[in-house]
């Protein structure tokens, strides 16, 4: 049996900011169950003594000179914005006015 419930998927969709219909939630729950069951065998592969790898070829201390590089103008930055006003992005209301 899958360990992922429909309520879990609903919660995850909210965390990921993706609105989902009931039908989508049902489908995603069953698909996710199959996928998680297939990939969870990774838990048996490595013991506690194996270090984690986050990056294939790690580099350390990658710095550049602290000088101003290329910057976009406000116009360039806003060229693709769905909504803008003056030299600013226009953002929908952050708080729900109840």
């Amino acid at each position, binding site marked *: 049996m899958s360990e992922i419930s429909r309520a879990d998927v609903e919660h995850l969709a909210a*965390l990921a900011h993706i609105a989902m219909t009931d039908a989508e939630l049902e489908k*995603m729950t069953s698909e*996710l169950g199959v996928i998680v069951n297939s*990939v969870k065998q990774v838990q048996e*592969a*490595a013991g506690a003594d194996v270090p984690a790898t986050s990056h294939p*070829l790690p580099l350390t201390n990658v710095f*550049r000179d602290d000088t101003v590089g290329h910057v976009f103008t406000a116009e360039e930055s806003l*060229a693709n914005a769905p909504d803008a006003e003056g030299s600013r992005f226009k953002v929908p209301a952050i708080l729900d006015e109840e």
Partner: protein
Amino acid sequence: MTTTPQSLIRLTAAQMAAKLAAGEITSVELTQAHLDRIAAVDDTINAFLHVNAGQALETAAGVDKLRAAGGTEAESLHPLAGVPIAIKDLIVTKGQPTTAGSKMLQGWMSPYDATVIEKIRAARLPILGKTNLDEFAMGSSTEHSAFGPTRNPWDTGRIPGGSGGGSAAAVAAFEAPLALGTDTGGSIRQPGAVTGTVGTKPTYGSVSRYGAIAMASSLDQIGPVARTVEDAALLHELIGGHDPRDSTSLPEQVPAFAEFAANHDVAGLRIGVIKQLQGEGYQAGVLARFQEALDTLREAGAEIVEVDCPSFDYAVGSYYLIMPSEASSNLARYDGVRYGARVLPEGGPLTIERVMGATRAAGFGDEVKRRIILGTYALSAGYYDAYYGSAQKVRTLIQRDFDAAFEAADVLISPTSPTVAFPLGEKLDDPMAMYLNDVTTIPANLAGVPGISVPGGLSEGLPVGIQFLAPARQDARVYHAAGALEKLLNDAAESPLWAQIPALVPAAGAGPDASRPAAAAPAFTPEVGGAK
């Protein structure tokens, strides 16, 4: 020999470059021949999301002018100057739309060029256009593109591989001699295998990722797509090298890969057959071509050894935890505020939360949503150690397997894909089956090592790919091994595999499912000549 547009497009990139340098052809002629080919066949193939005719011809005319004038400027032209190229639409380009195959970015115009694009512009390669891909490079068939699937030029009822099916199909169908791809879990190599072309995933960090739209940042890598090993090597030389704008970029010099590709002597080369990447789940025809490749290399003096990589059995599981985890984080940027689509929810208050939810619901396709949710799950409190943490440990074990294998062998070999191209639609309803298709290519991404796919012959009329892998920073070895196998197989067959492709039937005969609605590419007609 007279050169017709039809014969021009069937040359290799190296041959085109030689003819340009010798003044036998012009870049305008060559570029126009490819644009004409795109116009003739791309309604069927759907390899291009945008055709950049005006700008490409302008670049071509500039090269021709420089060459005609002679002098130092002509002499200092890059060897590939004037040879056209297609760009996977995950790589950002000024002056052309970049969509990542997603409705989320439909119509988005990048304000900057990727580093690899800057290099291509500096070398004066005409950019033919942007090629189709699975949405945000998530997929193995190009069926997850929001703009309809690309079709395999060998059989238009089948997938061209993915995510870079557009680049591979364009090269296989003679719509472009060269293309750029990106490879996160096999997206350059597997399309190469199933279209009978060549594709390289370079060592992680050896080609700048600046300007490649991020999927999984610790796995993503830009690389060359071509019909021959030499062409891939030449393009790799052009795009490789350190980039201060990519903090994961390796500081090493770029070797002369084409010289290694031209060294066909494999006497004494130790080639390791990976025990875990054969047998069950692999089609008989794929294994038969693979065995022939081994026999051919052995007869040429290579030493074939078997290597054991037990942790590869966990590679797909590890990959499908790490990749979605990184993707869920990378794709958080599509919030409907700064760029990309914004969709308003129906009814109710217009808060940022609800606008984001509606935007991401409408802008992302099913596969992207699946991976974002899976990644969000793998990273959530209580599951992080069990899933993401375990997957990262497997990554260490896979690196150790590679280290041990490269003690016994100079390069490793496997089939590039367990199967030949499958019919469109076959795996769309079974995500896990689609994921398992990547079993052969994923280990290289997890470990950061280079890999190449080179044609290995046909099975039931469809191309089979052979993969070579080398230690990190030893990309030259994959060019040596692949160049040698390519030469041996070409000599035996008397013509390269890519030249044996059947003539394309026009759109009316586009396979059994030509009526699929997805093929109609709604609201996104490639704008021929539309350099806006």
